[in-house]
């Protein structure tokens, strides 16, 4: 459910598609990586977007950030439509919407000192004086837990974890209100992951951030997000309060996904897990419900009729005939 104020981000019926080309470069069809997704994110909220690889969660994040243009649908950010705009038109509107890659530290220019890298977004987007810029840089650097002395260092002179913090600081320079975090903890060891997650939560408090938290790691999403959207082959199949979804998943796919996650010290997944097969190719989708080829509850109706996303009694939404 939404918070009482207007949502900071509102997607309605957003689709993103890529051309499928044959060996001669001729377009032979379209691949819908994101298919008619409607979502809204309340101000200050953390919305987790989960799903397996190829489900379209990253494409969704990149579409919101303006890296891909949606084929249709509307994306409203802070009340302004940003979906159909060209990059240069929406730049001003998107200033407060930042996209954070898996390892934000990896995008630092090795020839630039940290201080210069952090100042750059301000130079491009604002007309502040250099003294103001430097003050802002020091503030943000302190907020991510790095000493001011680091401003004169090059990226290779600091550790990987510190580079990550600098990358985050760079994202925060323009005082964003919404940050799309794309797999921010994948590839991290658990002991580091906890520290990184805590940093995200602290920064959110301090800078009043809203996160769209894209991850394949359900345990992490459970821990940090208030609401969760589960995607399968480009569609949102279930969306709702994290605790509700984890306690009693409504969609059979969500049920299988949650059942597949190993819990240390808990029941063993390999003894109970039933889901067979692999997701079909997004280029050749099955008719009707996309999950029916793997679904334990599939019936004739599922092949004929695609289930719409409907609101259930407890306020969450699910796209299943049996939910």
């Amino acid at each position, binding site marked *: 459910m939404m918070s009482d104020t207007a949502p900071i981000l509102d997607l309605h019926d957003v689709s993103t598609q890529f051309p499928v080309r044959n060996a001669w470069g001729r377009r032979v069809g379209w691949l819908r990586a994101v298919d008619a997704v409607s979502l809204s994110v309340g101000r200050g909220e953390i919305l987790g977007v989960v799903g397996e690889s190829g489900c379209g969660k990253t494409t969704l994040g990149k579409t919101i950030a303006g890296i891909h243009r949606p084929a249709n649908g509307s994306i409203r950010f802070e009340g302004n439509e940003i979906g159909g705009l060209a990059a240069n038109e929406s730049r001003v509107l998107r200033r407060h919407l930042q996209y954070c890659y898996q390892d934000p530290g990896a995008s630092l220019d090795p020839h630039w000192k940290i201080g210069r890298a952090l100042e750059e977004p301000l130079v491009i987007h604002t007309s502040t004086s250099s003294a103001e810029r430097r003050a802002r840089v020091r503030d943000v650097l302190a907020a991510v837990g790095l000493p001011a002395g680091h401003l004169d260092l090059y990226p290779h002179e600091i550790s990987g974890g510190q580079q990550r913090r600098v990358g985050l600081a760079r994202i925060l320079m323009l005082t964003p209100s919404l940050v799309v975090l794309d797999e921010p903890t994948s590839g991290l060891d658990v*002991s580091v992951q906890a520290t990184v997650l805590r940093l995200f939560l602290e920064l959110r408090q301090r800078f009043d951030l809203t996160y769209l938290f894209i991850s394949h790691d359900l345990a992490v999403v459970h821990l940090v997000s208030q609401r969760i959207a589960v995607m399968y082959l480009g569609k949102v199949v279930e969306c709702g309060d994290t605790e509700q979804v984890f306690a009693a998943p409504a969609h059979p796919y969500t049920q299988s996904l949650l059942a597949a996650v190993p819990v240390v010290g808990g029941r063993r997944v390999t003894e109970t897990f039933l889901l067979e097969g692999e997701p079909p190719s997004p280029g050749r989708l099955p008719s009707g419900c996309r999950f029916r080829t793997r679904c334990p509850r599939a019936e004739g109706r599922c092949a004929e009729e695609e289930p719409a996303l409907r609101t259930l009694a407890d306020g969450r939404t699910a796209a299943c005939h049996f939910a």
Partner: protein
Amino acid sequence: MTADLLTVRDVSVSFATESGTARVLDAVNLSLRPGEIMGLVGESGCGKTTLARTILGALPPNAQVRGAGLEFAGRDLLRLDARTQATQMRGRAITFVPQDPFSAFNPLFSIGDQITELLRWKSPDRAPRRFGYPRARRRTDRARALALLRAVHLPDPERLLAKYPHELSGGQRQRVMIAMALLPEPRLVIADEPTTALDVTIQAQILKLLRTLANEHGASVLFTTHDLGTAWEICDRVTVMYAGQTLETAPIERFVRRPMVPYTRLLLDSLPSRNAALQGIPGDVPSLVSPPSGCRFHPRCPQASDLCRVERPPASVAEEGHLVSCHHPHMATQEAAAG
């Protein structure tokens, strides 16, 4: 009790690098029983892959291996000549399942060609012939491959043999890899993070498969992973490594419920499923070129004393099957006193 299939005794491996000698394994001990699945867990850079490759005899040429012994089925692998190692051990008695099954296949040959190529050289019941590949052999090898592809639940194995690696999904490629690792009827399968690149629903299928097949074939598995969840799913026992040292070995239930080494406890506490406070382990993994003296975990350890800085704790048996290398292990009696 039966004899161990594999015993690693005080094995050290170092690499000459530009910045000095990196001591990647420091007097590591490990033992594996026949038919057992042993998990080798630890964070990136702890040396688990290096240990796996040492046993496999597949270290890069700049590696220096020293140690008291690496006994496998009654033979010392450290003192085995390279030729015997290559023909009788690697790929034959000891096989390997890699993390990324795509880069392990040759993209230019069909799956069928790659499987029969394997059987040509590493067949379980006959010596390889240097020249020629008689048609009768080829036919029996093909039949053997088909049987195993069915056993790993790959649909339509006849057509699969004609396919190329890029035509398979990640899960299918890993199934073929597992089939190929079992084809030579090995005594030990080394699986190096075999499910890290896979989605959770596929991971569950693959883990189940690996466990069932290893049991059927009577092979032991050395399973390296950074994910304690997958270790919980598949392993009988677990060994924890940190910065090139083995710290604790225990049966999985004991390991999860009553860990004794501070590092293991901190690692388990960092799991997101049981870590609402988001407690990480402070500090960084040390450099292996100039590792800390004594116990390599001491700079980050809350229990560290002067003794830990000076002397490396010897491995001692805390209880049946529970080996601990720590000067200050957490005792169950402490818990009773505290609780």
